[in-house]
């Protein structure tokens, strides 16, 4: 589903070019869930941005569901995101002037899917917020906002879901609920999940963990290999 080959990211600073990602290569299979973990400033979010097509690589290749992200312009990447990608963010990133249901409808409308409202209503029920459909984000609690964001991410039944610290702004109880919801929907829809997190427990629930350190992907473990080692 995702294939990267020697991708790097170099940014220009006042003190000259700075390489924030060393050449990285890995693959993520369809339906797999992958956690990218690492300390702050290790390059996790930069990697996520590149994988999701929000940013451009400096060198190397990224293939997303068979499409060459590294050769595509911003418009083509936007189209690809609209068709195949869902997002969840730490700060929820809901549009403040739209209600909960309208926020959920947004990707479906942008992608031109029919019956956006019906789909949004259904998924809002699935996340248990049907009664909050017409509330604005600032009228919802943090946990509720993130449930709306998850519903928004899944409305288009994306092939891949990227999540940036999805529980980072929530307390333990809410974090747990959100994790469960995320993995449940992920299973039901059969989405490939790539998430960035500090939360070890959340990372453990993923099939694989990629560890970032100083812009390098230093270690890759998977539950399967752990299982093999254990047996």
């Amino acid at each position, binding site marked *: 589903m995702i294939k990267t080959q020697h991708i790097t990211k170099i940014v220009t600073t006042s003190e000259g070019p700075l390489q924030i990602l060393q050449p990285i290569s890995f693959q993520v299979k369809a339906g797999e869930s992958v956690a990218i973990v690492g300390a702050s400033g290790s390059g996790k979010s930069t990697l996520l941005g590149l994988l999701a097509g929000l940013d451009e690589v400096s060198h190397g290749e990224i293939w997303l569901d068979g499409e060459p992200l590294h050769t595509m312009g911003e418009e083509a990447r936007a189209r690809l*995101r*609209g068709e195949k990608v869902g997002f969840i963010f730490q700060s929820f*990133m809901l*549009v403040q002037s739209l209600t909960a249901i309208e926020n959920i409808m947004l990707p479906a*409308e*942008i992608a031109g899917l029919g019956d956006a409202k019906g789909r949004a209503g259904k998924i809002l029920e699935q996340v248990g917020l049907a009664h909050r459909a017409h509330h604005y984000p600032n009228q919802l609690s943090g946990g509720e906002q993130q449930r709306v964001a998850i519903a928004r991410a899944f409305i288009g039944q994306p092939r891949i879901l990227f999540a940036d610290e999805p529980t980072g702004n929530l307390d333990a109880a809410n974090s747990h609920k959100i994790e469960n919801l995320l993995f449940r929907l992920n299973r039901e829809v059969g989405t490939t999940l790539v998430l960035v997190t500090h939360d070890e427990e959340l990372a453990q629930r993923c099939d694989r963990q990629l560890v970032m350190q100083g812009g390098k992907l230093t270690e890759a473990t998977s539950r399967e290999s752990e299982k093999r080692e254990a047996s």
Partner: protein
Amino acid sequence: MGVSVSLAWRLFRHEARRGELTIILAAIVLSVASVLSLSLFSERLQGALTERSAAFLAADSQLRSRYPIDEVWIEVAQSRQLSTAQQVSTRSMAFGQNEMSLVDLRAVSAEYPLKGEVKVSDAPFGSTYGVDTMPDAGEAWLDSRLFQLLDVSLGDKVELGDGEFTVTRVLAEVPDAGFSVFNTDPIVLINLRDLATTNVTGPGSRVTYKVYFSGQPDKLDTYFEWLAPQLNDELHSWRSVGDDDSPIGRSVETAERYFLLASLLAIVLAAVSIAVAAQRYSQRHFDPVAVMKTLGASQSMIRKIYLLQVMLIALLGIVLGIIIGVVIQQVVVIALAEQVNVSLGVWHWRPVAIAVFTGAVCALLFSLYPLMRLFSVPPLRVLRRDLDSGLRSRTLQFVASGGAVFLLMWAYSRDLSISMILFASGIALVAGLMAVTFGLISVGRKLGSGSMGPWQLAWARIRRRAMDNSVQLISFSITIMLLLVVLVMRNDMVAQWQAQLPAGTPNYFLSNITDTQKDRLSAHFTQQGVGVEDFYPVVRGRFVAVNDEQVNTEITKEEQQGPREGREGLGREANLTWSYTLQKENRIVEGSWQGSEPTQQSDTLHQVSVEKEIAGRLDIGLGDVLTFNIGSEVIQARVTSLREVNWQTMQPNFFFVLEPSAMQAFSPTYITSFHLPAERKAELTALLAPFASVTLFDVDTRINQLRDIVGQVSLAVEFILVLVLAAGSLVLIAQVQASMDERQQELAILRTLGARGSLIRLSVINEFIIIGLVAGFMAAVTNELSLYMLQTQVFQMQASLHLPYWLIAPVVGACVVGVLGALGCWRLLSLNTVQLLRRMV
């Protein structure tokens, strides 16, 4: 397209309901409402004032000729739905019982006057009232003065040429009598059909034929286009309301320029407020745009959504602005209806078009750069919140907003110089402010360090937000400068008008006072409690030659626009005076004034100073030798200076002022003037009774007319000022509001960290005080620059320094901006920390 429209509409609907569009909407509403109410009001007022000045022409336009005017021209005008009236005038002798006098004989058709009215009174110098009929056949209406000069009463007969007329009315005023208080003869009005019986228009007499026209401006214009090719510049002259060079015409013209200026400044104010609001609008939408892009929205979809939204906002703003603008100006018009004759019924479409155009152009062009910034927000912002727009260059912003302001000014004023002056001042202000802001920042670097008191926090914030603060400073300064320009211009203008006619301005003139009467008259008047002004010696002389070349054609102040036939002269006798002292409101423009010492020149000729305009018309230059016949004597004098005379002062003015030594041989009569309050007018006859030979000129009516108009115009200017001040204050509030929102995040953090409310409040207030102080100072400096250029280039006034405002503007700026900042801060600090933090999300 469908998705973009529905999303744009949905965002618009929700944001409007949640009050998120208030600032940008208010800015557009304010711009449209202020431009509309100002221009609608000034258009109506101008209409009313034009109507008033038309009254001084007795028509909208006037055609003068030395020869009878072609009847066909009049018929064509009538066929084009223009009203016409005719007048034939000449100077002639009138004979009463035993006396005679030179009069200004005017024979008028029944339609005269087309504008204004003829006023009469029941007794000479009595109270006046308007009439709408003209003298019937055989009737003559005589100026008050003539009753004294000709020793006649109502019902008596007077002879005019070969005709005999019955005096039926005391003529107090005709609308187109002219403003010159001297060199005019008393008017006699008769019916045009009676003119033939007088035989005064025969060969050799100087006759002026006038046709008056009035009607729709476009019809008048097309008629003039038809007529112009047939006119002979030597014989005909065409005058319209706009050509009015009288004191009233000039006051109205100055007022019109002021209204124009005020409206232009309102446009700039509107532009500033929209620019501030658009900036804020754009920043608030960075996140939604990043989210939509992340979710797959294309550039074109984002563009459509936000352009549509801005158009919806502009549309709503324009509609609300028009409603509010109409209401405001209607209220003003109703409030002013008593004092100013503004026609309520007339609806002007141009102001509406201008207001809509202003709203649309401002909303779109000032949103252009903020919108482009919005469109270029990268989707990566969803992960990296510090990323804003990829668009960094502000060139586009300056070009788009500067161009928009200039184009609006030019389109509105159709006056390149006034637009360029204001625009150049604006550019100078912006450049100066940029320099000051960065200067301040480097000063503040030291002040802002150290322990965190309210002043340090304020300086630190100013320093940190250098760019934002410079934008804010510029918008505050421009607003304050515009308010200052409108205020100071109004003060200077009204002061100048009032200086023309200070209280106690002489309203009567006396001439023909003999040397022996002089002291007696002065004593008599003083005894009656009436102060008499200076006495000017006068000798009547005939100006006959320039450098021995004879002159012959008549010309008077009123008839200066007449055609030339060879070397022109005054023909009639002129009032010659002499003095070593230059009269008030006279200025030497060429040569040098005759000093107190007799002339030392070798040719022993005396010196004479000539009024500049008459010198131009009579083709007289420095060094020319003028010959005057005084009685049987011939006097020759060399022109040693040319003078500019302010004819608006209502004081005796002279074309020729000789050196006293030239006139020693002549016994002069004297001219003087005095002020008599309206309520004592009835005492005039008693006052003059002991001096039967003295001639009285009544300029009271003229002065009252002038004062009336100046009063009305000043009042209107006052209202315009209030409107602009109100608009400016609203802009300031909007600016503070917008900048308060930008400070919200910082306040929330400080609050969360446990900063005391008083520390935060004081630091914010101090920050605003500093900004207000600097903005006020910069506004005072640029105000001076703009005023200098406006007064010298546009208003033709004397430029002056306005030092008090150098102190007032910074103090008021600091107070107003500080108080507004305090109010905004108080509103924010009334929220608890959680609410504050939530508003930041």
